[in-house]
């Protein structure tokens, strides 16, 4: 196979539709979740190790910066979950048209924005 063949897909020169941004964000949030998986396991570890480490984790999570990190983590979870549910719905044949795809992408952004706001209320209430 000639690997010098021209490739006409340079995403830097293409104006991307909303569906592309929603898809890229799904990837970005997924990679981010892999990145913080160790942190999540550490939190599970601390929460179950002993009563002292459980209270210690609670104290750590009560500090301002940690709340921000927790909110960012929950935001990534919310986005990846909602975008993933859209994928499953599309696998059932719903929202596969051009119009349906755009509508689904908008709904993902709206629903995620609401969930991220609610997560903020949960953390800072």
């Amino acid at each position: 196979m000639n690997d010098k063949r021209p490739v006409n897909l340079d995403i830097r020169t293409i104006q991307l539709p909303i569906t592309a941004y929603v898809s890229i964000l799904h990837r970005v949030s997924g990679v981010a979740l892999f990145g913080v998986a160790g942190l999540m396991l550490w939190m599970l570890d601390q929460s179950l190790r002993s009563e002292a480490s459980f209270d210690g984790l609670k104290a750590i999570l009560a500090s301002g910066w940690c709340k921000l990190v927790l909110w960012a983590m929950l935001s990534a979870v919310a986005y990846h979950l909602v975008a993933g549910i859209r994928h499953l719905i599309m696998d059932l044949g719903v929202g596969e048209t051009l119009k349906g795809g755009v509508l689904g992408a908008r709904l993902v952004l709206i629903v995620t924005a609401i969930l991220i706001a609610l997560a903020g209320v949960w953390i800072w209430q």
Partner: protein
Amino acid sequence: MAVKPVTNLGRSGLSDWLIQRVSAVVIALYTLWLIGYLLSHPDLTYAQWAGLHQYFPMRLFSLLAVLAMAAHAWIGLWAVLTDYVTVRLMGGRATALRVLLQVGMVGALLAYVIWAVDILWRG
């Protein structure tokens, strides 16, 4: 003769496709259950939390979720790495770098699974 993929999880696109969706459903259910539990226990004590995780069905659910996350991350990161860490986008050393990253990724996932089993079963 077709070249067989060697770094994806299920050895075929179709099985990866299915594993990705089944694992997604398991992770989604676990996430919703855990968030629901935490929301309904605002004054959670260590005794309640530790008791929940000593309950066998909960341990099984947690283990399933961790295994699903490992498989899900393997397939997802494989897709990302084979799309962006390529000779076309990065030049001649991309293949070696990608295989290195893939091996590192699988190693990290294995370590996470072992760590999770240790956390869940030591109590």
